[in-house]
């Protein structure tokens, strides 16, 4: 390969890096911010998601101290992210599918 061809190829690779960056980061984060009450309310009114109050009545959640409750969009689906305090005073995170209400994941911070 000639030096000129190689130099053109170097710039082509630079363009590929920039294009990849634009494709991956365009539009910013799709997450619904925790304080985005309007969107959460709109979704609830439309009957698209399980209301948080209904979720909190589950046996495993009833009476639990909630430190933080967030509604986020993860991998295209709406997820409730709950941060709870257990009896031993440890922080526990539980993730629920906001549409079906199914428990997706739980993790305890050590």
């Amino acid at each position, binding site marked *: 390969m000639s030096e000129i061809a190689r130099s053109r190829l170097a710039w082509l690779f630079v363009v590929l890096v920039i294009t990849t*960056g634009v494709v991956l980061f365009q539009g910013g984060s799709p997450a619904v911010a925790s304080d985005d009450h309007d969107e959460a309310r709109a979704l609830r009114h439309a009957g698209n998601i399980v209301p948080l109050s209904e979720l909190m009545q589950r046996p495993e959640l009833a009476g639990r101290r909630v430190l933080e409750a967030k509604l986020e969009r993860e991998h295209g689906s709406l997820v409730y992210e709950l941060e709870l305090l257990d009896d031993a005073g440890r922080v526990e995170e539980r993730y629920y599918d906001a549409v079906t209400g199914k428990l997706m994941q739980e993790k305890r911070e050590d």
Partner: protein
Amino acid sequence: MQLERDRVQVWDPFVRVFHWSLVLAFIMAWASAEEWDWLHEQTGYFILVLVGLRTLWGLLGSSHARFSDFLYSPGRTLAYLRGLRSGRPQHYLGHNPAGGWMVIALLLTLLATGASGMLIGGNEHGYWKDLHEGFANLTVALVLVHVGGVLMASVLHRENLVRSMWTGMKLRRSEDV
């Protein structure tokens, strides 16, 4: 002794854009881990693309970007490291042998970190998660050694290697390999 010194382009535009994009993306991936999943995953994919392009460039890139330019035998590498210890290392215009192996090590640990991260799926307690964290930590350790090595070589060779990675230019020496 520098009988003949002239300024030459050693790092082509892609090598430099690759290097500094990787620095930025790695810091972003590290900072967003466990905090901001979307950003963490996007930067992870970005790093994997960077690693892929750099590997391709190592095969068909400009002279000092090619693997064949900077992969030296263990004997040559040990000789270079001994030179560092004695304070009189052999000067290389491209990557020195230790730096060359660091390039390979970093590309491999970044690939392993990215691939294991993609395999986590939704399982936060699985095998891949532990592996991902292990590889990420190993990469950070290598980065620290890399930065230390660059600073040490810069002092011993009396040249600013960080600036060279930005401008692409280095001063050729008569003793160069």
